[in-house]
């Protein structure tokens, strides 16, 4: 049996105003896989991601993290997941180090591991000198880096990223891609949304394209792009009705 880290089963989300944001979506991401989640603005990507990480309630369908339902075992699922939203608003009133220590406490990371990992990731993202300063004084990119360090700290089984490359400098983007591969090679999975199709094509093992809340196509990058590029496949989907 395949080791499914993320299973979205017939997930639908309807907002109180009656708008159906996501309709009967099913996606599976296996261990070691980087899965790109692609769609136009307002397609339902963030709505799906928020449900996957348990920050948004939903009634139809189910989402399983390593076989556990986010609905019935939210704490267990969250303990295996790390999430970075598209615009990570962190606590402006704490220092970067205090934030990372807080996240380490939340995920029960030993003192030895947190020291080692914070040191390593801070060095990787060039943030070692800035961790003693208040997050409020950071630029958008620096906040993004601290959020990423916080996400990698507990070596999550599932890493969920919403537009992770926005605001990152080229060097940090490069290191992030390396860390994503490294995490997946240790048996974790990554589910991330992006609008940068070149990145998705190079980085992902599989992709899902959604439009108006419905899955249009899903599969390995090779399957989805066919003989063209991922951009060609996406444009074909974007410009034509389902």
């Amino acid at each position, binding site marked *: 049996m395949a080791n499914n880290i993320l299973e979205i089963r017939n997930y639908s989300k309807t907002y109180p105003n009656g708008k159906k944001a996501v309709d009967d979506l099913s996606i599976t991401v296996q261990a070691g896989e980087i899965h790109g989640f692609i769609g136009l603005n307002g397609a339902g990507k963030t709505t799906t991601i928020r449900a996957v990480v348990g920050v*948004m309630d939903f009634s139809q369908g189910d989402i399983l993290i390593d076989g556990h339902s986010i609905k019935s075992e939210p704490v267990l699922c*969250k303990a295996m997941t790390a999430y970075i939203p598209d615009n990570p*608003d962190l606590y402006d009133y704490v220092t970067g180090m205090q934030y990372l220590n807080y996240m380490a406490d939340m995920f029960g990371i030993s003192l030895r591991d947190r020291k080692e990992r914070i040191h390593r990731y801070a060095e990787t993202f060039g943030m070692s000198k800035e961790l*003693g300063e208040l997050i409020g004084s950071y630029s958008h990119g620096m906040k993004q880096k601290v959020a990423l360090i916080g996400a990698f700290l507990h070596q999550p089984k599932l890493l969920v990223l919403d537009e992770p490359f926005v605001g990152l400098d080229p060097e940090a983007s490069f290191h992030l891609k390396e860390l994503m591969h490294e995490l997946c090679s240790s048996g974790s999975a990554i589910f991330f949304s992006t609008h940068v199709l070149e990145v998705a094509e190079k980085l992902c093992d599989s992709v899902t394209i959604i439009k108006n809340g419905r899955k249009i196509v899903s599969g390995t990058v090779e399957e989805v792009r066919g003989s063209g590029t991922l951009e060609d496949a996406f444009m074909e989907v974007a410009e034509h009705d389902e």
Partner: protein
Amino acid sequence: MNKYGLLLRMQLYNSFGINRMLHSHETKERKRVILSTLSGILISALLIFYSSIYCLGLAMTNLTNLLPAISVLLCSVISLFITLMKGVGVLFGMRDYDMVMSLPVNSFSVVTSRLTASYLQNIVGCLLFVVPATVIFGIFAHPSSGALIMFLCATLFMPVIPMILAMAVGALITVFSSRTHHSNVASIILNFAFVLLIMFGSLQISSTKGAQFVSISNMVGSMVNKIYPPAILLTNAVNRNHVLPFLGFAALSILLGAIFIFVIAHFYQKLNAAFTTTRQKTSHKVAAALKISTPFGALYRREFHQLFSCSTYVLNSTFGIVLLLIAAVMLQFFPIAILEKQMGMPAGTIRAIQPLLPLVPGLFATWSCSTCASLSLEGKSRWILCSIPVQPITIFNAKIAVNLTLSIPALLVSAILFCISLRPTIAVGILTFLIPILYAFFTAVFGMFLNVKFPNYDWTSTTNAVKNGTSVMISSFSGIAVGILPLIVCTMFPEFITVIIAGISALLILITVLLYHKLKRTSLYA
């Protein structure tokens, strides 16, 4: 519409909740706005009632001539409070500063629109007193229609100078404290000092009883006219039906307002830079900074960081217990007889009301609620709390624990001080320790419950979250009711004090336990 108008309209969209009411399709959101509006109407009705009673008192004792000066005094105090409580966040260090300043508008329009929105809120507060005062002045003093119009129109100018004063002092406090090592501590202390100064001044002026009403009111009237020259202009204009002093009053307010706007607009960017500048930390060591703790411990520690990151939040959350401690300490240094005389009480009153002692610290505990805004303050960062692997009740427990950490030590210290100075019976002494703790638990849990029900995440400054939420409003007023009602009932039925206190305690325990159980079953979503 010009740019000032557009900026002001955007400010007002955010101010009164009408826009949410009109455009939100969510029933929950609409209910929230309706509840806020109803609470606002209720509070306004109460204020109008009290100001009418006070003005009638003056009119019945033939002191209608003091109404203009008293109106200026009360409107000034109202404006000072509203402006100070809303904080300088109205003008400086706002979250949308970059966005607004990147628009093709000059800083003059930005400053003026922000001040106008704040001014309109002050005007609403002032009208609650001036309208009843004008009506009563019209009925009892039989003035000319010109004098009445001048009295009413003066409301437009009454908040201007106090607003400027409060903003200037608030700004100076913030800039000064941002230059110190412990910026927030300095800011909290200075803000406390300023609010206490206003309160002490107001109490000194208003502490009076029936027999002294005439002389004290006369004294207040002349004192206001002496210490606040614009008041004498209005007094002369209304009482003597002279237009010139009224124009002087209006011109002085407009002139000072204009100077303030021009100065602030001129240095707006520099002032904002001063506000957002924090002292750079030198170096840091990873090993030294890291400590391990439980998720609850980490949440609890972060709550304290959050609390002390906003001086208005600290002020709001600890005001009651600070006042209580001041009162308890004062009892140690001033003989009871002197305090009774100072407060205009007959000799022996304090000792006579000793059985009520356990309820007094409880009243102050209800004014010290941090939980009612603690969830709202998560704001846009709430995704972190929602995505960490802890039960929501652990998060609520941490917030409740911070509230209790603030209130319980202060309540215990004040209970010790009260027992030393008032020497109550053993039973009353024990209750003086226990009952306030029940109030503290009730206040913290009730505040948490309210904030879970009515979170306000869409704030533009932390002050806005601390001051403007429905949960904060309900918590403040219901807290005062829960604190004061038992005192009133005990005063009315002194022979049943023990039964009443026992009943109140049982009720507080029951409500607290029920609300806590409800919190335990609550889910937390962003």
